[in-house]
């Protein structure tokens, strides 16, 4: 028996003899990653997903997805003796009685929030640098689908504990589903197995969607996403020695493997530190849900804020015919608005192709300032969503800053239309400024002494 070298040698020859895998292994170790911090955002999302699966499996061992009633007898005194559902009761059990249960539960919740932060930032990176152009338009569509699934997955997850906020969220989701033209009532009954709030059949559907269907769908798309990246290789920013036909960067082995492992460990560290030190979703403060209960100042997880904003900003418009409602109001803010947003996200690569007529293969990224019109359009689009997102917290703003809610609604309605135009103009201007500053000729070059004793000139 030798040291680790011997072990690795044994493993390599074992698998090469049986699978002939050494050429693949070698190619993998040689895989080149271009260096740029913004390429880490997708990786952070991937690692959040890993943490979510891990912590989620742990939680399934304790959570009871049932609306059956029980009397709460746990150690949280203010709720003792209250009738709660098993879903709520078991989440309380995880939080108060299970050792390290609250740590894992909160880590799971934090990881979900970070997952969506990372996805959205990654999406911004892709849109601002034109990384969605051919041949990556197909992978952009995969990514946007994952964003949609991640939103659904997060919503399903925080709807499970049957606390007041999750119930209010479900009531709104039910109303939005009900508002779909023609088939709304039927859809609502189909998903809930009857009328709201539904019984065990509904919560078991929600549960299986959250712990099996959606995670498998996301995992499948992650695999496709990564396989496409490996096939096409990473994009890179233009620079010395970088062309449309090569990749310049660090090899997977050893530097990149270590850095990426470091990122994985850092994500896990941040999630556990947040899970241990920063409280999230204290359901014992919200209490169990009843259809007849609601609280003021309720805020969903951050990534659903834009939908709340859409519902709140929508003027009281409904479509009526002869005294019958055809399209109820929640349809516009809760269904049409996200449909428009996602349609634009899916369609943007094709729209841009139509505008520019550029269908060439692009491996070099655009610097945002160099394609000012796109940068400005993307910035305007995200401003539009962001203003509506902030409007979702208008009630909190009115409490903390004493600005009347009604005035804010009007302000945000106007801002949702005006701010994108303003941002478009400002962004174009800023891009032009940055470009002009950049076009000055570089002053001199760096001369460096090589280890061999000669001199080399480094162009800047």
């Amino acid at each position: 028996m030798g040291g680790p070298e011997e072990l690795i040698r044994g493993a390599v020859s074992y698998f090469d003899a049986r699978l002939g895998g050494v050429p693949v292994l070698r190619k993998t170790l040689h895989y080149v990653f271009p260096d740029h911090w913004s390429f880490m955002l997708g990786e952070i999302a991937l690692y959040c997903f890993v943490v979510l699966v891990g912590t989620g499996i742990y939680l399934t061992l304790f959570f009871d997805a049932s609306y059956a009633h029980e009397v709460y007898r746990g150690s949280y005194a203010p709720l003792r003796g209250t009738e709660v559902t098993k879903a709520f009761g078991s989440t309380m059990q995880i939080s108060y009685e299970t050792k390290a249960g609250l740590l894992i539960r909160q880590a799971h919740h934090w990881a979900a929030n970070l997952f969506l932060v990372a996805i959205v930032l990654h999406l911004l990176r892709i849109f601002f640098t034109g990384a969605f152009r051919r041949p990556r338009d197909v992978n952009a569509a995969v990514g946007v689908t994952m964003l949609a699934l991640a939103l659904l997955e997060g919503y399903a997850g925080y709807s499970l504990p049957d606390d007041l906020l999750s119930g209010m969220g479900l009531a709104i989701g039910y109303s939005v589903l009900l508002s779909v033209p023609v088939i709304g009532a039927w859809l609502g009954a189909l998903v809930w197995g009857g009328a709201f709030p539904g019984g065990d059949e509904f919560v078991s559907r929600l549960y299986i969607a959250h712990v099996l269907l959606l995670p498998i769908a996301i995992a499948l798309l992650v695999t496709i996403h990564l396989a496409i990246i490996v096939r096409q290789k990473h994009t890179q920013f233009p620079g010395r020695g970088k062309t449309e036909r090569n990749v310049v960067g660090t090899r997977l082995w050893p530097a990149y493997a270590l850095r990426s492992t470091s990122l994985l460990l850092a994500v896990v560290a941040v999630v556990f530190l947040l899970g241990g030190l920063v409280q999230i979703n204290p359901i014992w403060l919200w209490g169990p849900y009843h259809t007849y209960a609601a609280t003021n100042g309720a805020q969903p997880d951050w990534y659903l804020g834009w939908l709340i904003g859409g519902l709140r900003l929508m003027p009281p418009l409904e479509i009526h015919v002869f005294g019958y409602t055809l399209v109820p109001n929640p349809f516009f803010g809760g269904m049409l608005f996200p449909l428009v947003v996602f349609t634009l996200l899916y369609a943007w690569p094709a729209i841009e192709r139509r505008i520019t007529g550029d269908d060439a293969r692009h491996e070099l990224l655009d610097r945002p300032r160099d394609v000012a019109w796109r940068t400005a359009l993307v910035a305007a689009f995200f401003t539009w969503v962001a203003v509506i997102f902030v409007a979702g917290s208008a009630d909190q703003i009115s409490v903390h800053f004493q600005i009347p809610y009604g005035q804010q609604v009007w302000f945000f309605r106007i801002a949702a239309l005006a701010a994108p135009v303003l941002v478009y103009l400002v962004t174009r201007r800023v891009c032009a400024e940055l470009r002009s500053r950049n076009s000055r000729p570089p002053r001199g070059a760096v001369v460096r002494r090589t280890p061999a004793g000669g001199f080399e000139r480094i162009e800047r």
Partner: protein
Amino acid sequence: MRALGRWLVAALLLLIGRRRARPARPERPRYEAGGRDELLVLTLLAAVPAACVAFVVVYFTDASTQWLGLALGGAFALAAAAAGIAGKRLVSQKRHVEPRPELEHPEEQEEVLRELHEPGEGLTRRRLLLTAAGGAVAALLGALAIPALSLGPGAGGRLTRSPWRRGRRLVDEQGRPIAAATIEVGNFLTAFPEGADKEDFASPLVVVRIRPDELRLPAHRSNWAPDGILAFSKICTHAGCAVALFRYPLYRPRSPKPALVCPCHYSTFDVARGGHRIFGPADRALPQLPLAIDGEGNLVAAGDFSGRVGPSWWGVRKS
């Protein structure tokens, strides 16, 4: 405390000043075998098991979430630092250039297309066969999708059913009848139909009392609010949240009129005018339940709601 703050500011300024004064550091070669970085990584790696042991100790002693998170998160943070420094400083940072694969194969595309079309070339009714096959696949998929309909009972029925009848008593959350005399002007409470499922959208009511002279009910509802006591469905007609806020004027000349407010999207309903919407995204009025006072002085329903309860759907009557 203030002195401490001043010292801190002074120390900070000193530090910043020192850093500015220091001449630019000569660039250290990034790849350096042996030396300080190795020692640093080694120290970090050695600290990882220590943090893990701390986690285990906390788990078996007081198991407080904060210490657990700090120990476990700390262990991962140390490991992350070790891997990061190793990745940046201990191993080669050599830049490599890899050629990109050509993605398209124009000649092979043609060949494949030919091979795909070949088998059908001798057939006379190719179009028809293909159409029929497409139809068969669609029919099979359609048939397979049908069992999904078992997920829900058909619409109708439950959405429009209401437990409220003339003479049904209003009870509170504990199931006790509600005496009209106990409700004062400006009061607000939740009530349910006696013996019915409280969670059903059609069940919960908000009962409020305003001064009878404030009432502006439509003529046909003039006797729906005995002594100024009004009852409305508690489920918002916008998005199904509970209309859980009652705004009652504290100082009449300045305060807005009495209204029920939904805390989800702030739809606001005028109590005196029979649940008419005055603000927010809801479009339909809050359904009102006619009330009466029975022989024992308790509140009872005098009929069913004035409209459909809860969020709207395609084809629901507007009022």
